[in-house]
């Protein structure tokens, strides 16, 4: 992988970290609001189902995680296991796909 590609991965991880920082704050505030307000599961679903704004927000959250986590895991693989090359990259792409699938499954579950 070229120095430019490795640099782009680093930039993607820092950019996704910035997105996640905002997402986590909104997510935590939402949790605290829902719990303190005593919202039931049915009431929460009533607000999220068909709500494009929540769907968009949590989709961005999931995609941010799917970009951020595998790049960080890539460094862990290099430093702890010395794992490099195509097999590592394939495993990381699979991990990213798993995160997107699991995350979007949850997002659709409260949207649809």
């Amino acid at each position: 992988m070229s120095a430019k590609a490795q640099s782009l991965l680093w930039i993607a991880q820092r950019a996704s970290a910035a997105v996640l920082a905002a997402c986590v704050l909104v997510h935590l505030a939402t949790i605290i609001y829902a719990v303190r307000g005593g919202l039931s599961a049915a009431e929460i679903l009533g607000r999220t189902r068909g709500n494009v704004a929540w769907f968009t927000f949590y989709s961005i959250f999931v995609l941010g995680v799917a970009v951020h986590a595998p790049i960080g895991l890539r460094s862990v693989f290099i430093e702890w296991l010395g794992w490099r090359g195509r097999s590592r990259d394939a495993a990381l792409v699979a991990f990213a796909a798993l995160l997107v699938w699991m995350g979007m499954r949850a997002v659709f579950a409260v949207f649809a």
Partner: protein
Amino acid sequence: MSALAVEVWRGGAQGAFQSFEVPRHPSQTVLDVVTYIQRSLDATLAYRFACRVGMCGSCAMSVNGVPRWTCRTHVDKVARENKLVIAPLRNLPVIRDLVTDMRGFFDKWARAKGSFAGTKTKRDDFARVAPDSADRRKVDAGIECIGCGVCYSACDVVAWNPDYLGPAALNRAWTLVKDERDVVKHERLRAVAGDAGCHACHTHMSCTERCPMGLSPTAAISGLKRAVLGSVLKGEL
């Protein structure tokens, strides 16, 4: 004067600590201790030094688990319960006793394009660099490296990722990136970007904590990350 109990590494990668008893003296340095052992107790002890005044960077060793320049490290400051454990620098192959093979360390300076590349010849006039310009100040902040290898030995990322260029080589590259006379900046940024370069740094700051010259390779590495980012965004890398 009381005696100092000193454990000194003997052998290569495989070896063991040997115990010595060394008389204490006022203002005694760790290098004084090692020299006393070599001259008075065991002439076969191998170690490296030259200037003895903190300029040449050749006498760095691990002292009680911490990499230090031994010629400027006073025993009073580092001895615990009158004991010293002296070993070769970490992250470098041991040749014998306290002597490490520094080739890998300096080869990485070359890989980081640590050589100045200008366009002027001896027939040209001197380049005039304003001493108070922002770039010149950044160069000043990192230029006094003596190449002792203390930062390299202190760095955990070097231990985990042997390809990593390390703090000293990256600090050197940064001083050249900020040198307005230098003409190979893009090639240098390409050399220091990525998994083996500045992007591998975890900002633990062990290098900055241990640098005997008070430099901050961490700041230099952060500067390189910003420079690479700018270069990528401009399509120059």
